């Protein structure tokens, strides 16, 4: 039941730098930790977060196994036009989670 939490300002002035904050529930299992029986817990990490703004990629992060569980990623972008931001987290097996957020850009 992974539901990402994303904060995008609802409105922004054209040309303004906006801060976007994202959180996703995920164990970010490194693959180096033993379970109670001493067997290694298989690696299970989100490898990548990509953000597209009206279809155009504006941000991409590669997440390393050393990142804590429930990764928080914040970044900035420039408000160019009214539309949608699409977020996509992908794990190492190709499984992904998406979230979209609208933004209204005023002159």
């Amino acid at each position: 039941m992974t539901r990402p939490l994303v904060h995008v300002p609802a409105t922004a002035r054209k040309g303004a730098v906006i801060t976007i904050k994202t959180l996703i529930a995920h164990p970010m299992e490194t693959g180096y930790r033993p379970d109670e029986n001493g067997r290694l817990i298989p690696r299970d990490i989100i490898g990548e977060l990509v953000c597209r703004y009206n279809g155009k990629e504006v941000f991409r992060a590669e997440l390393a196994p050393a990142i804590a569980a429930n990764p928080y990623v914040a970044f900035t972008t420039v408000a160019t036009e009214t539309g949608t931001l699409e977020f996509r987290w992908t794990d190492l097996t190709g499984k992904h989670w998406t979230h979209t957020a609208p933004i209204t850009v005023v002159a």
Partner: protein
Amino acid sequence: MTYARLPALLLALLAVAPAHADPIPPGERLSGAAFMSRETRTMQEDDFANPGMLWVREGEALWAEKAGAAARACADCHGAAEATMKGVAARYPAWESRDGRPVDLLGRINLCRVRHQEAAPLAWESRALLALGTHVAAASRGEAIAPDPDPRLAPHRAEGRALYETRIGQLDLACTQCHDAQWGRRLAGNPIPQAHPTGYPLYRLEWQAVGSRQRRLRNCMTGVRAEPFAYGDPAFIAIELYLMERAAGMTIETPAVRP
């Protein structure tokens, strides 16, 4: 983690400290948040950086899901938790008249699962129970702790206080010796807080997850190398009753973040 590697000096200090430390005067009480780094406090205060919010949202989804033979959702009987559950976590543990015993918030949620949804109780410390508990408790964020005044709770609170003042474990330390007598000092690098249960369930960076108040108490018990009580043990409910009374008037922070 245990406190086996305590600086010898502090250990000696704790060992000779009287088991009866004076309670902290109301004006000097501080939430655990006051002992945290600026980064951790900022994380707690920003709903979009606080990972505990992931549990709040998960709980919100579960709240609306029909469950059990009764096929009822929490929301079917209780409406929106933000409104109907406001202040509830600030009052718990509360007296449960049907069973004639005190129950804490997570215990109450399981009573609703069993009695009203006709479903199996959720396991202690399971993700679903913590998510529901965090969602319900977050509705009290900003509310002052106001313990249930039912007089039948008095003997349980007194028992909780006695447990809080009893030396336990191989380190032979009582809760009060750390939390009333030594708060603000450092223990293996970590500041000792005053043990006010203002933020539960909360996100602990060390756990990388949300955990219950009882999980925190189990950590403190194993810290002094005592055998922790089992989840749901009446002794835990008694300690929680005393901790909430000690913190009466302080503000609920759920979902808090702790190191």
